[in-house]
């Protein structure tokens, strides 16, 4: 089995983001960047399948500026075999990303594509489902457990009501939830070894797909601030405030 894992470079989840004063976006200069958290789960799951002998090759793919390559390098350090970096200096919407990934899938012919279920920057939660649609493949979204059974894969999905289990035919798209596994850290020797693994570079605009954005971002602003709260000194005071001041109980 061959697996593609799509990874995205985003502002680190621990960074308190700052909105630019001119309303054009979020400040990403001199800000810590890292792999989108559920994408780490996507890599980990692929590596586990390889370790169990079920997968032969893992290809890590990213789309983004020059530095986006770091996310591919990190995937190589935890077990991916080779990388593909599709260069683009501009933001591409999930629909455009899905079209680019479709091109790569048609060329590489994997049996499975793993993606994180949602990127923590634009919070769209679309790319995996869109890629599945464009390929006509089934989708196992928000996966917290998967079990590979020959030509099918059983996916346990995190849904609002609890858990749902489905069976999907291969080839398939899986979007990963944070609870799917515990991503490992790369060891120093593996980081060194990853430097020698190949990364193919392509340009997004050379792929012959329509990646023109359809959505204009008119303004980015800070959400309304909450008014400052108070500290109470006892449980009795808290209950009294909730009853008599906030009038919520």
């Amino acid at each position, binding site marked *: 089995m061959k697996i593609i894992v799509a990874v995205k470079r985003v502002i680190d*989840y*621990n960074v308190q983001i700052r909105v630019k004063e001119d309303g054009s976006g*979020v400040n990403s200069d001199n800000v810590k960047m890292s792999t989108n958290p559920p994408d780490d789960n996507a890599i980990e799951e692929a590596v586990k399948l390889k370790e169990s002998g079920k997968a032969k090759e893992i290809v890590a793919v990213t789309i983004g500026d020059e530095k986006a390559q770091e996310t591919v390098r990190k995937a190589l350090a935890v077990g991916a075999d080779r990388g593909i970096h599709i260069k683009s200096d501009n933001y591409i*919407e*999930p*629909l455009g990303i899905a079209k680019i990934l479709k091109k790569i899938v048609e060329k590489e012919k994997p049996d499975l594509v793993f993606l994180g279920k*949602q990127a*923590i920057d*634009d*919070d*769209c939660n679309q*790319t*995996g*489902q*869109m*890629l599945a*649609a*464009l390929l*006509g*493949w*089934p*989708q196992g*979204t*928000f996966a*917290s457990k998967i079990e590979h059974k020959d030509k099918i894969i*059983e996916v346990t*999905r995190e*849904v*609002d*009501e*609890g*858990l*749902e*289990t*489905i*069976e*999907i035919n291969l080839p398939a798209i899986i979007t990963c939830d*944070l609870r799917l596994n515990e991503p490992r850290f790369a060891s120093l020797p593996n980081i060194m070894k990853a430097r020698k693994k190949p990364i193919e570079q392509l340009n997004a605009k050379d792929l012959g797909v329509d990646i023109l954005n*359809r*959505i204009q*971002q*008119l*303004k*980015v*602003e*800070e*959400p309304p601030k909450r*008014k400052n*709260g*108070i*500290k*109470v000194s006892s*449980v*009795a005071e*808290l*209950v009294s405030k*909730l009853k008599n001041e*906030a009038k*919520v*109980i």
Partner: protein
Amino acid sequence: MPILLLAEHNNSNLKVFTLNAITAASKIDQDIHVLVAGNKCENVAKEVSTVPLVKKVLYVDSPSYENFLAENLTPLIIKVSESYTHIIASANTFGKNLMPRVSALLDSSQISDVIRINSPEEFLRPIYAGNAFATVKSNDKKKCITIRPTSFDAAPKSGGSASIEKIEATDIPSISKFIKREETKSERPELGTARIVISGGRGMQSGENFKLINSIADKLNAAVGASRAAVDAGYIGNDHQVGQTGKVVVPDLYIAVGISGAIQHLAGMKESKIIVAINKDGEAPIFSIADYGLEADLFEALPQFLDELNKLNTIQK
């Protein structure tokens, strides 16, 4: 041109968040048609037809739609979508799973998690876990939109009499199969719609200790929530998770117990009307958004809290 709204239901009853999505849709256009696709779901179609904001119900019954697999529903929606400008669903796991599949095949760039409608083309949506709001304008002819249900009121349910049109099922691709659903049954109000939510975090130290939270929830008729840390530690099921990747809740009162306040948790609850934080670490970030903060050991504070509630003559339900 009318709006096509995708109803979420369980073949017997409409899920309430569909009503919030209907309210959002009504801010785009008054001509709202609702698609009810399922198996033996005629009751749901009837239920939707009494919503005054709904003009027409499209209803389709087929065993292929019984479990709402995105692979099976998408061809149907694509076919029905021809005469509509906007396709709308609620942004819970049903809509999140289904809508991008539809959107991609319509070659339309989806707008996820809309919290305000400015015009039929312009929308407000949160990004970066709600730490920024983006105003966006869609240039697609057909717009696929998911609505954050808690940002809109539920549409009134009675008094309407929309026409019900039965439509044909379409072919399905047979590439996916439903196996089972494990739903957590609870006597308490649903987390997404409860007026009061009390949540526990890693500070609870065990699943057993959640009984302290539960007894207060019972007293206040509140739903029980949790931080990701508590869910990951196995204290409580994933369906209780509040946060960026869990549920977004906007109750009148949110009580965070033993929760430090990671960005991703705040994303799920910081729009709550009143926030209470109980934490022994006075520096915990949760205090920065709390209306009432109590710096205390939760194992002492929670039993006292229950005692104080028991002393009250009346409690709002």
